[in-house]
Structures are given as C-alpha cells and as structure tokens.
C-alpha cells in the first residue's frame, strides 16, 4: 500500500466535474483507493457520493492511499489529478 498527501488545486474544490474525473480515475485503476480529508475518516475514492459528501474545498489537504495493482503509477496519476485546477 502507498499513500501521499496532496493539496486540492481546483478553485471550487472536489465537487462537480473535478470529483467526477477523480472518481472515474480511481474506479478505473482497479486498485483499492481511499481518500481522507485531514481530520476526517478515509472513504472509498471510487464512490462519487462519498467523495463529494466530504465537502473537500480548494486548498484542503487530503491523503490518498492505493492498495493493489500498479500502486505507484496509480498514486502519481491521482495526485496529479487532484493538484490540477480543473475549473480553469
């Protein structure tokens, strides 16, 4: 299992389109992925409802864990997605 902490890049946080893109990528990776808002509990990153109901905003720190498959590559891809501003 690998994990990393990243700051959310999207201006309006992890809602709407950015949340959709992230959840799609997590589900497509085949690995077991969780996302945890600092101070919160880890939730299934492949669940769009679990992700948006965390209320993750721009600049919040989240920790991603990836378990199974090509962990390192999946983690890199997801971190990249989260730190990019998709609202531009």
């Amino acid at each position: 299992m690998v994990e990393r902490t990243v700051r959310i890049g999207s201006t309006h946080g992890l809602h709407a389109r950015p949340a959709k893109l992230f959840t799609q990528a997590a589900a497509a990776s085949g690995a077991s992925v969780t996302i945890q808002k600092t101070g919160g509990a880890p939730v299934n990153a492949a669940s769009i409802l679990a992700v948006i109901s965390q209320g993750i905003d721009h600049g919040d720190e989240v920790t991603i864990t990836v378990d199974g498959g090509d962990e390192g590559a999946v983690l890199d891809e997801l971190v990249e997605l989260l730190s990019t501003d998709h609202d531009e």
Partner: protein
Amino acid sequence: MEITGTGIGQGVAVGRVVRMADRLPEPVDRPSHLDPEREIERAKASLSVVAAELGRRGAQAGGAAKDVLEAQAMMAEDPSVVDEITKRLATGKTAERAVFEAFASYRDLLASMGGYMGERAADLDDISQRVIAHLLKLPAPGVPNPGHPFVLVARDLAPADTATLDLDQVLGLVTVDGGPTSHTAILAREKSIVAVVGAADAATLADGDTIIVDAANDLVVAQPTPEQIAGAEARIAERAALEAAPVTPGALADGTPVPLLANLGSADGAAEAVQLGAEGVGLFRTEFLFLDADTAPSVREQQEHYTRLLAAFAGRKVVVRVLDAGADKPLSFLNDAPEENPALGLRGIRALRHSEVILREQLTALAAADAATDAELWVMAPMVATVDETRYFTTLAKELGIRVAGVMVETPSAALIADRVLAACDFASIGTNDLTQYTMAADRLLGTVANLQSPWHPAVLRLIADVGAAGAELGKPVGICGEAAADPLLAVVLVGLGATSLSMSPSALADVRASLARYSPDDAKALARAALAAEGAAEAKQAAQAAATEITTTRAAAS
C-alpha cells in the same frame, strides 16, 4: 368538455395525449418475500439499467449537460449506495424500499450541506425514482418518447425535463400546475409550442385521448366533435399563412414606428429571430453562460459569445441584461446562503454588487465585444429598486466602456420613482413578469396564485404608465421586455401607455406586428385608458377588447 387554463401565444393544436408519469409514491416498508441475494440482484440490475440510460442521455446531450448526466450515472452505480442497499436488504427489506432508503440517506446528507451539494440532492431523488420505477416495471418518471407526434400532458415541467424533450414530436403542451411565467410557459414561447398551462382539470385526460389545445382562447377541448377539429385545423392553416406573410418593421397604422425586438437566451437563436423580423434584441439573457457552471465563465469565453451575438445584429440595437441570478435561478458562486424569500433576496443587481468582480468581468467582455462589432450595444441591470443602484450600475458600466446603460423596471419602487431612475440612466426596460409578481405580491412560480399573475391588472398598467410618462418627459426610451409584449392586444395597450419598443419571443412577432398595424397612436391611447380604468385584470382585458372592437367596426363602417 372544455378545460380552462392560461394559453401561451395565439396558436392552436390538435393531437393525441401522452401523459408524463407522476412521481412514484414512497415504497412501503414491508418484509420481502424474496431472499436478500435475489433482491440485491434485482437492485443491481435496475441500477445498471438506469446508469446506462443516464450515460446514454449524457452522450446525446453533450456539453455541460454531459458532465452532469455522467456524474448522475456514476451516482446510480455508486459503491457506497450499493453498500447501503445491501445492508438494508440483509434486514429483509424489499429492493424498492432499500433503494429508496439508501438514496434518501445520501440525499439528506447532501441537502444538509447546502450549496452545490444541496443541488445534487435533487439529482439523487431523480435517480432513486428512476431505479424504483424500473424495479416496479413502471414507466420512468420524466419526459416520455412515444415515437409519434403527441400532446404532452404533465403536472408541470422541470428545466431538466424540457432539456430532453424532443420538440419535433411535441404538438402541444398542457400542464396542470404552473402559471404564465412557469418554465413550461417560457419554453413554449421560445420554441413556439402551443401550450395551455395551469389547466387544473387536465389531470383527468388519459393517454391516447384526442384533444384540441387552444392557446388563443385559454382552453383545452377534450372529446372534440369532428366540427371542432375541422375548425381547429382551419385555424392552424390560417396561422401558417400569417407566418408566411412578408416581414415589415413594427409600426402603428399611421406609420409611427414601434421597433419589435427579440428576447433571446443565447446567440444560437439570432438567425431565426432575424428571419422572423426581429429588428434587434430587446432582452438578451446571459444566465445560460453561467448556469450549470460552478464558476463564472472567463472574460474571453463571454466575449466570444457576445461577439457572435452582436455580429448577427450588425447595425441594430442589442440590449443585453447582465447576469440575473437568484430567486428561481440560483447560482452557487454568487449566492450560497439559503434564503426564506429568494424572490425578495440577494438577486439581480444586489447579488452582482455583492460580487462586483463578476459584474466587472461581464461588462468588460461586453465592451470588448461591442468594440469588435457594428451592433448598437445597450446594457441593463436587473432588479433595480433604487436610484442609488441605478447610479452604481451606470457609473460602473460607463467606466468599463459601455456606451448606453440602463435599468430594468421590475420592482414597484423603480416604477414609482421612474422620473428619478431615468434621470440617472439612459433608458428603462420594463420586465412585466417580475413587475407583476412584485406588484400583486404573487409568486410567479406558484400555480395556486396564477390568477393574480396577469400583467393586465390595472395596478400593473398604472405603474407602466408612470414609467412611460417619465420616459416621454425626459426623452428617454422605455421598452417592454416581459411576456406581456407578446400578447397582441396588450401590446397595443402598452404602446398607448408610453412604451417605445416591444421585445418578445421571436415566435410572437408576427401576431404583434399584425395587431399594431390596425391602430393609430390615439387608438392605442384609448385602449390604454379603457384598460387603466377597469377594476381588475379580466375587466381590463375586456375593456380594451371592447374599445378595439368599437374602433375597428367604426372604421369598417366609415370605409
């Protein structure tokens, strides 16, 4: 049998009824007679059918709607929801009940978070309804697609329904709820669909019934006789001929020009409006650029769209209304706070003043588009209630390079001090829908008070007359850009009250043009006086009608 409602436009249609399925009742919480494994199979099968359907609709819709529908498809098969359903099935509930409860738990969670998440709560309700309908083998709630032309009968249409309606198949619309300014009514006007809204007894119509939708007479005829059908078809042919008549500029009988302009919601409608004889644009709504967006569009994005619009109207007037958010069209990035009375809340110019950067960006984009094209750009602010707001807007607009800046008169306060408001800006445009709502204190979205929402009410006409008089005194234009201008008889009254231009859905231009040409300026004033002196809306319409009939019969007798 005749069912009364409020007709939209002057058209008539004959067709077979297809009803939009009503919302499903909450599934009863009773023990399932199937075992949990079988129930989860049923639930998963229905979830996946609904997800696939939403995905397909997304691909079909494209654009911003695609992202929204794809996200909904993901919600339908969300692993957290499946977990919640499985948990409930293990206690012996039915799949229908478990699906209902699982989505409801997330709906309540999101609703409690407000803002963007709160809006997604309604999406979950819709998904839940679709899945339960599939489990019950019932028609999915939402817009039907019978594969032949039909008259759609619904309780009311939500914007989401209208977005996916196949307009080529819709002969007419009949709604049980909804007033003349409901989404259904606005859609009907924009797309020239014959509609009767707020027809309470339409709930008794059944699938397959042939009916006549008579918008001009505010009627739906159930079980029409062959004679009635023949009469309706003759009128349909007559109207088709009228629409084919050559297009001339709007004018009264003596040639006094009354420019007829178009209300548009996006640059896409520009070509059609010009073809139907629009002499410019009297109300360009900019909300569509912002709706479904989580952030305001960039200056460049806006500028491109405005340039496309202005280019279509080279040499003509285009009146653009800056973003009118709030009330029935909330935008999360402008106003996130829930309000008890949103129609009286932080909306229009109030919201923009609160988030001035959005207003500045929009005005900058408009000024740049104006500089790049040959149209005559006028810009106006919505929901202005005070001289202070008027001055704030015009000062900022001029500072950012807008040449002609005015305000919408939608509040009684602005109408009552129209002389001072007009002194502080270049023009006024009366939004009759909101002016009626605020004058009559009747929510324009509420079918139960639809009887109070008529712009024919003398109280509303009195305010319009005050604005008209102030405009004439100061030599400043006073336009009408509400749906009232689309009513051929009321249009004459409005000109009599001092309106100098009329803006409407392009589909209404032909009827209004033909009506104006029958009356002189004195006739229009006589009609206005008759309507103003009446006791109520219905009486005002009757009085104007009687005055009009007298004028036309006297003239026919004289010639």
